[in-house]
């Protein structure tokens, strides 16, 4: 199996690769179009600013390769943290930027001023029934989050929620398109289990 971690210069790729290796899977980090288009599974990681990430992705011309893989070849993709947000329509971080537009979600800053930002730490996720990602994981399990912007969506199917002053998208799954706002590679046993569920999908 060819697992391609999209490397656009942002994110803790070492931990993600170690987690996959622990589960018994090799992966490659690449920003080469071929590696993305020919992958069996794509992971889009990321920490940092949405705008900077999209700028990098467009500069590297990998937005097109990701869309070919996901829309035409139906390759499963998992966006993690900022990677999940990038799969959405847009974000207002550092102004306004369009995302990859693979999931109908919009990203804005947390609105509740009474909660601490960034939202950092473990939080429980209320996830949908018949989920692929959470197969074998107990309801309301805790996962590790670290972010200042959050996604909202009108979709309900396949969407998991967490709360930090307000409800927000903690994860989504829509056909071959998956995203987690939290870091599965930093979420202990449950996170590893989730990664395994994605890889074996």
């Amino acid at each position: 199996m060819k697992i391609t971690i999209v490397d656009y210069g942002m994110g803790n790729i070492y931990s993600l690769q170690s987690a996959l290796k622990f589960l018994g899977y090799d992966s490659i980090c690449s920003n080469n179009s071929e590696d993305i288009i020919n992958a069996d599974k794509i992971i889009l990681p990321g920490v940092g600013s949405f705008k900077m990430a999209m700028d990098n992705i467009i500069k590297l011309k990998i937005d097109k390769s990701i869309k070919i893989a996901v829309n035409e070849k139906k390759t499963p993709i998992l966006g993690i943290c900022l990677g999940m947000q990038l799969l959405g329509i847009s974000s207002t971080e550092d102004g306004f930027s369009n995302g990859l537009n693979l999931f109908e979600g919009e990203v804005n800053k947390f609105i509740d001023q009474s909660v601490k930002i960034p939202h950092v730490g473990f939080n429980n996720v209320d996830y949908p029934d018949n989920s692929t990602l959470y197969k074998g994981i107990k309801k309301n399990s805790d996962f590790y989050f670290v972010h200042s912007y959050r996604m909202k969506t009108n979709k309900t199917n396949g969407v998991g929620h967490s709360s930090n002053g307000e409800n927000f998208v903690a994860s989504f799954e829509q056909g071959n398109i998956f995203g987690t706002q939290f870091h599965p590679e930093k979420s202990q046993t449950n996170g590893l289990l989730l990664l395994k569920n994605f890889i074996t999908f």
Partner: protein
Amino acid sequence: MKKKRLIYTLLYNKGYFMLSRNFRLQKVGDFKWLKKHYNFEKIASSIDELIILDVTREGRDINEFSSVVKDVIKNVFIPVACGGGIRTLDDAKLLLKSGADKIVVNTTLHTNKELINSLVKNYGSQFVVGSIDFQIENDVKNVYINNGQLKINQNLQDFLSEVEKLSIGEIYLNSIQKDGTGQGYDIKHLEDTLAKITTPIILAGGAGNYLHLIEGLKINSVDAVATANLFNFLGDALPKSRIKIINEKVDLAVFSSIDNLKV
């Protein structure tokens, strides 16, 4: 709801892991010793996060430190923050590549705000943990940098307000006087100060047993407690502490052991 966090801090100094008392360092053991007494692959399910600090006083080597980080956190799937001597964007990048999710800065908060700004701009607020060491002298909370060796001309309250403007992700607050004493956190002197801070707070310095950890976690404005006491939490003391803390109704995440994962 967001849970509170229990953090373990490892102090590293040229090949050895250290115990610190009032910022005076004592060698405890090398990497082999750490492996033997702290198998983080096993006990990671008892902590929420790991912080690894290079506290070497002279001749820090960021390359060597980052390879130590890689070794310690191999097969540890929890958040890791690293710091000590980060002076450039490249230092931070190297630690990120070695598996650090966040970096910890102390002296730089005072001496090079430009660097803090570019770290935040490049990697986001959540990437930067600001560590602040303080000591109370004549009822004034003085801030120290350079491994607690140099007093700056700002008190804790003023420095905190200034640091909060940098939009960093978290603040790691350590009492030099309580550090390594095992007498408990300096809650008496901090409670009012902490209530005014809007950045997530990690309280450090002084925890000697699980009761101290509970005491810290029960303060509303405290998001996480940290301990660097290698001796007080040896063997299964850490897993047992976590159970006791959860039994005291402190809201910590519940983890299952990695042994439950059949690969």
